């Protein structure tokens, strides 16, 4: 290459900058400031923790995480309106790290020893709309009768649309599991009228057949489709349902009889959508992370999905606690619980890792943290579209609430390796942004 005159180099620099600028044609994120009316933003999270898994019992020798139990199903009659209690003034404070300003948390309701031997199968919970930056509660939604608890929450990308799964209270031993129902929740935290800050509407979704347990819930980013992971009674295959909310139409992909289930080994959120509204990531216990094209024909879960990440080898047992695909569809974020033989050769040690994989190749990209297992698993509650900013819980030891090991005693924003705590209720066991 010959020497260039300075003018030539300046032109080359300008040309190179313009070429780079052309790689950005659209923004992935809308204004971070709340404006009048809904502002679609590519943010969403799913927080679904089966109560039986969330409420671990502290045994004399340590902590065990209960596995999701199989639940019976039943479609309830149309329910009376839910009680919505508004409290606190709207919060306009900006949340750290550009995390959405509001979220819906599922909180233990009332007082008592939730995990005592004869306690209800699932303790009573409320859904609470909170401001991320301050933790202030802006509205509280109690489950409408005949339900007594919310067991899962999932969010669309518009920061105002959520789906809640509710269940009736029932005490063990169970001959029939409590009925499960689904509700659309729309929030408007900035509304000056407290009664208008949250609206709950029943969804006509049937969970069948009898004995079906719901172990995963994920609302598509545009809020039009709901993915439900269902675990059937033993000897029946588990299935993934995708419901179009506007029409009630369902697509079902079933695993083969005797195959892996969403249940044992996957106690966290097994479902997540990419922003293309068709790629659905899920994890099957003890096997792998897979991607399903929810728009493609097919009814067999394994045949209709592709393997992305196999369960890591080299450990005594790895257990997928949570798997989430980033909105841009490029990265799989996962929490893995790993047991390894103790260095002294006596017993095993358990730790958990927050890791990322390429969604295209399944290659391990990064280990974001490697920490002991506290009361419950680390959870990724929200991820920025590329996964660079995360809201996580369970990364620090927590207190116990009601005799149970607390889920998410602390939470915060993880960015560039730095963890910034956010206000967090010690009664929160699930949350969605």
């Amino acid at each position, binding site marked *: *290459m010959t*020497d260039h005159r*300075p003018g030539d*180099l*300046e032109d*080359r*620099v*300008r*040309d*190179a*900058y*313009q*070429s*780079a*600028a052309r*790689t*950005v044609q*659209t*923004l*992935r*994120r809308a204004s*971070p*400031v709340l*404006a*009048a009316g809904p502002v679609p933003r590519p943010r969403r999270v799913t927080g679904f923790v089966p109560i039986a898994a969330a409420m671990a019992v502290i045994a004399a020798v340590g902590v065990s995480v209960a596995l999701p139990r199989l639940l019976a199903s039943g479609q309830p009659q149309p329910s009376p309106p839910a009680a919505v209690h508004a409290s*606190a*003034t*709207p*919060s*306009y404070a*900006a949340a750290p790290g550009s995390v959405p300003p509001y979220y819906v948390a599922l909180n233990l309701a009332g007082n008592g020893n939730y995990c005592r031997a004869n306690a209800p199968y699932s303790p009573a919970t*409320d859904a*609470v709309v909170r*401001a991320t930056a301050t*933790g*202030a*509660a802006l509205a*509280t939604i109690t489950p409408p009768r005949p339900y007594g608890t919310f067991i899962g929450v999932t969010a669309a990308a518009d920061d105002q649309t959520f789906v809640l799964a509710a269940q009736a209270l029932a005490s063990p031993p169970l001959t029939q599991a409590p009925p499960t129902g689904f509700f659309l929740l729309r929030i408007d935290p900035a509304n000056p009228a407290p009664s208008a800050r949250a609206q709950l509407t029943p969804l006509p979704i049937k969970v069948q057949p009898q004995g079906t347990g719901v172990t995963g819930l994920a609302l598509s980013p545009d809020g039009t489709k709901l993915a439900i992971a269902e675990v059937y009674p033993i000897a029946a295959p588990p299935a993934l349902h995708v419901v179009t909310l506007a029409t009630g139409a369902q697509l079902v992909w079933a695993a083969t009889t005797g195959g892996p289930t969403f249940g044992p080994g996957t106690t966290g959120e097994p479902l997540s959508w990419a922003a293309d509204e068709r790629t659905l990531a899920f994890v099957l216990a003890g096997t792998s992370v897979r991607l399903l094209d929810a728009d493609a024909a097919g009814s067999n879960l394994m045949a209709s999905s592709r393997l992305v990440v196999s369960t890591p080898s080299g450990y005594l047992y790895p257990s997928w606690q949570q798997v989430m695909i980033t909105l*841009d569809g490029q990265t799989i974020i996962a929490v893995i619980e790993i047991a390894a033989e103790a260095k002294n050769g006596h017993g095993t040690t358990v730790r958990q890792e927050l890791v*990322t994989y390429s969604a295209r190749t399944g290659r391990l990209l*990064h*280990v*974001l943290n490697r920490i002991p297992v506290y009361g419950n698993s680390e959870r990724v509650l929200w991820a*920025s*579209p*590329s*996964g*660079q900013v995360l809201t996580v819980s369970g990364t*620090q030891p927590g207190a116990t609430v009601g005799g149970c090991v607390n889920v998410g*005693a*602390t*939470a915060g924003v993880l*960015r*560039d*390796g*730095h963890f910034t705590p956010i*206000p*967090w*209720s010690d*009664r929160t066991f699930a949350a969605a942004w």
Partner: protein
Amino acid sequence: MSMTVPADRAGTGPQPVAVPDAAREAVDDLFRLHALGLVRLALMLVGDQATAEDVVQEAFLGLYRAWDRVRDPDAVLGYLRTAVVNGARSVHRSRGRARLLRVPHDPPVWSAEAAAMDGEDRRAVLAAIATLPRRQREVLALKYYLDLSERDVAAILRVSRGTVAATGARALAAVARQLREDQ
């Protein structure tokens, strides 16, 4: 140091002051007008779109928080550009501090790995710029991407015009040297 807000005590703590609607609408309008260009500017400084958007989001949030102190609406774009430059500096400081954890971020758009740009020479030029000291990279981006005058660049970086001129000249010389070495 976590703060918890038990549900039965919610709403009793300090409450933030509600910002009037006008501020939100104004900042929203500014976002629609300028965000894409600012993301592109940030891209020149940090390399990947995701990080660039994070930087721009923070810039607009900062503007929103400080809206009641804005005196000259015409100066807002300059403020945002300064915020983007500062935000990009923070990104590099954070990346530098991450020692124990592998910090994930997308490869820069000029890398072969990103496969986002065409033209080997263009990638080579940006790769050479990426090796420069921070101040030189900032001057080049403001001067040759935004085509700002030395006076405007000086205002954004809060340095003298002479510093801008000298820094720019050194930066170009370093890029030229780098490109010759890469032949």
